[in-house]
């Protein structure tokens, strides 16, 4: 399918009839996104599995969920997490993006790499990392207790506020990536002008840079809200013991209370979250409705000198180091340490517990070893294909006539709203009940398709942000000199966009390596992927293998990141 970049949206011009390309795009995205969601809608109205011979239609599942106090508790907790993620991750992420991209902050390169690490790691593992380091038996807690002669560490990682803080801090990189990508592409002449007229660093930031990247700020806030309600791994690991449930872990409760998987109530939860996602996309569209006027990377962009932080240089570096130490270095050290020992906790001599056995056992188990390779395939090849899909959708949102644009924007915002486990189940149902999809199911393609759909809100917004920064002047010029619409896009816009696309590929690659919940139902022998294996191992107790697998995950992503940086790709 080729998207036809048309000039239909130029104001004041009579719109030509909708080109076929847009129709096809909208139909394809609609089919991919809506078919699992409509299936869930149907399931939410049934008292039995939709494929059962006997079933009745009704709202009993809605009554069950909505009258369950445990649901509302979980819903409230999810809300707290989502708000914490917005109010912690957005300001911090934006500030860090500004400091790293625009100022003479020392060690900016090192900070950037460290900053990104939490998004390399499965949240289940991040949770384990926090327990190994800061939990009641953690090694940091032990040092602290010894230092101040305390019986117990004066903090907990198992309470709702602690989980909210951790969720907020570990999502800073998402915001950082969105915002810094945009900031790096900004035409620096505006900032330069502000500086020359005597504005200080903070004045430049608040009066010039941040307003210019407002769409990226709004996108990231909305993404935090979406992810906040979808977050699963951290509360699963940290909230389990004290019964701090969120929407996604509440699903376990639904199944265990009936004894058999409760598809109806599960689908109801999905419906509630979809309604929320629609509201979120509406808010986002409302807040960025004038984003066209922020285009600032054109044919004439140039970069200015970095802003001088002066006396604040070192104190800021110190504060950032403290943040990185808490949110990144400590849990990562925890994971790595856990992968290298058999036992841990007070009274264990870690040196004598050191072992490489956890890694050896991975490579002696065929499915675990294979999953490393499969994960790379899905993330590299599937990731590239996903970026191409997201580019078409983003172009549609930017350029198609209003109706199509709006529809695409809403469609693309929905999939991540549904918890990965439910989305994975719905996609699995489609793969086995729709005849044309049946042959795909036992292949890696099914996993790549599922991931592409699930990560659409993230990917499309990533590319929309990059696309929004590219002025269409060049393309218009090409059109005037006689190029076709497609030709003008390929020759004028694509080259400018390419760094943004490659960066998006890198980020999607990382998400695909890490993704866990939506692949659980699609695994078959030969198509194992790391993330889903970790979920399975968590239930039977193989934390040794989990720590080793995720250390491998980190190594894969860091290696790809290093190679990408070496060949000139920057994630922002």
């Amino acid at each position: 399918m080729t998207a036809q970049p048309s000039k239909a949206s130029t104001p004041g011009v009579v719109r030509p009839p909708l080109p076929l390309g847009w129709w096809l795009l909208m139909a394809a995205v609609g089919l991919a996104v809506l078919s699992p969601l409509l299936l869930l809608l149907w399931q939410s109205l049934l008292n039995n599995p939709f494929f059962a011979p006997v079933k009745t239609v009704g709202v009993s599942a809605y009554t069950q969920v909505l009258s369950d106090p445990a649901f509302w508790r979980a819903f409230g907790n999810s809300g707290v997490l989502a708000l914490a993620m917005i109010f912690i991750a957005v300001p911090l992420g934006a500030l860090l993006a500004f400091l790293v991209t625009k100022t003479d902050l020392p060690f900016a390169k090192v900070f950037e790499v460290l900053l990104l690490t939490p998004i390399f790691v499965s949240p289940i593992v991040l949770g384990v990392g926090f327990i190994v380091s800061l939990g009641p038996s953690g090694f940091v807690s032990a040092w602290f207790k010894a230092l101040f002669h305390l019986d117990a560490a004066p903090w907990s990682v198992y309470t709702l506020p602690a989980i909210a803080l951790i969720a907020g801090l570990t999502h800073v990189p998402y915001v950082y990536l969105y915002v810094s990508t945009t900031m790096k592409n900004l035409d620096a002449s505006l900032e330069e002008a502000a500086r020359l007229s005597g504005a200080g660093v903070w004045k430049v930031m608040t009066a010039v840079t941040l307003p210019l990247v407002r769409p990226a700020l709004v996108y990231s806030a909305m993404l935090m809200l979406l992810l906040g309600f979808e977050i699963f791994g951290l509360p699963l690991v940290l909230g389990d013991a004290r019964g701090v449930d969120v929407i996604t872990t509440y699903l376990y409760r639904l199944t265990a209370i009936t004894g058999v998987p409760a598809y109806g109530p599960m689908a109801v939860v999905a419906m509630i979250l979809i309604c929320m996602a629609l509201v979120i996309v509406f808010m986002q569209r409302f807040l960025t409705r004038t984003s066209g006027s922020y285009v600032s990377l054109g044919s004439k962009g140039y970069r200015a000198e970095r802003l001088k932080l002066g006396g604040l240089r070192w104190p800021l570096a110190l504060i950032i180091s403290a943040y990185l130490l808490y949110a990144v270095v400590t849990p990562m050290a925890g994971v790595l340490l856990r992968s290298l020992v058999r036992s841990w906790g007070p009274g264990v001599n870690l040196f004598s517990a050191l072992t490489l056995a956890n890694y050896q056992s991975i490579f002696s188990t065929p499915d675990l070893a294979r999953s490393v390779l499969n994960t790379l395939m899905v993330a590299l090849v599937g990731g590239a294909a996903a970026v191409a899909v997201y580019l078409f959708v983003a172009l549609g949102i930017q350029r198609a006539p209003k109706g199509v644009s709006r529809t695409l924007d809403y469609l693309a915002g929905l999939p991540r709203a549904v918890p990965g486990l439910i989305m994975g189940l719905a996609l699995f149902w489609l793969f086995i009940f729709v005849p044309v999809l049946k042959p795909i199911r036992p292949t890696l393609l099914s996993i790549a398709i599922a991931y592409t759909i699930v990560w659409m809100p993230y990917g499309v917004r990533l590319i929309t942000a990059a696309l929004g920064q590219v002025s269409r002047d060049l393309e218009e010029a090409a059109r005037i000199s006689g190029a076709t619409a497609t030709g003008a896009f390929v020759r004028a816009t694509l080259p400018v966009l390419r760094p943004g696309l490659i960066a998006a590929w890198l980020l999607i690659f990382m998400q695909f390596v890490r993704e866990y919940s939506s692949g659980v139902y699609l695994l078959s022998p030969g198509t194992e992927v790391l993330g889903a294996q970790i979920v399975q191992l968590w239930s039977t107790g193989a934390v040794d293998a989990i720590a080793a697998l995720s250390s491998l995950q980190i190594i894969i992503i860091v290696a790809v990141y290093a190679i990408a940086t070496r060949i000139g790709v920057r994630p922002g």
Partner: protein
Amino acid sequence: MSVLSAALLALPLIAAPYAAAQAVPNGYPADYAKTIDAAKKEGKLVIYSSTDQASATPLLDDFKKEYPFANVEYQDIGTSQLYSRFLAEAAAGSPSADLLWSSAMDLQVKLAADGYALTYASPESKNFAPENSYQNMAFGTTLEPAALIYNKRLVKAGDLPATHAAFAKLLSGGKLSGKLATWDPEKSGVGFTLMEYDNQSNKDFGAVSQGLGKAQAGLYSSTGAMLEKVVSGEALYGYNIIGSYALLRQQTVPDLGMKFWKDGTIAFQRVAFINKNAKAPNTAKLFLDYLLSRRGQLVMANKALIYSLRSDVAGKATRTTLTQQVGGAANLKIIAVDKRLLDNLVPATRNAFLDIWRKNVKGQ
């Protein structure tokens, strides 16, 4: 695993009499050869299982030794996903498992009762008690005792409670606050089965569960989480932990202690059945019989470290050693593979137990 124990584990295999491949196993009827011949003509055997591939590998390898022609595709997935996947695949008529092997006893028996299982008179049946199978459809294959695990660095052997009553007293003593890990039956199906049966078969369950509440025990939905808490010392004790998982972890973590109650240790069975519409029903029969056979149970007990269900097997994790540890067969209370498990899937029955649980543990 240490070199020594690896060598010990290998012993029974070396010592096992050499069986010519594809011969009818000892004691099986002669017409079993037909099943073997039919299996040779079948394609791959697909197994869905909740047992980790790492634990299952010794079994799969040994099975291949007995039947070199067999081509096995083994898929490990969680109990709930396993049920969902199979049910949907059966309804869609799409390729699915030939054999299902899961620790969710109730879900396995439900699938059998709902007509998804092949009726099969296994030649191994004579070696098992009636409580080990359901209508020649669903077969118990292992013994999964629920253990009290503890951290040896932090709990002295002398302080260990000997009975449930003593444990309840210890829990109420106020010294263990926050230092306990156990199942959350409201979030885990296996946890529900264990706790509910504990309540049925153990007169002191009420006191223990109230004690768990007083001690503010952490309630978990996965074995992984609970083992990790006790290994690290964050919790001193873990209550009703699946013994085979703990035994496996003990091989690498010597600080992990495990104790079985002498006033009644409960146990469940991992249940296997053959899909009625299996594509490779004969290979599935061979595998099921292998799991139930002395040879298979020997590998379970010594290499996979899953407690054998048969009593005529010697080794590390066997019914015999377990019976000694719990102080006699009368103290081993095994959940039977039968229709009563289906009661657990009736919301009213389920809620009746959960109400007791919530009242005792959460004071609700």
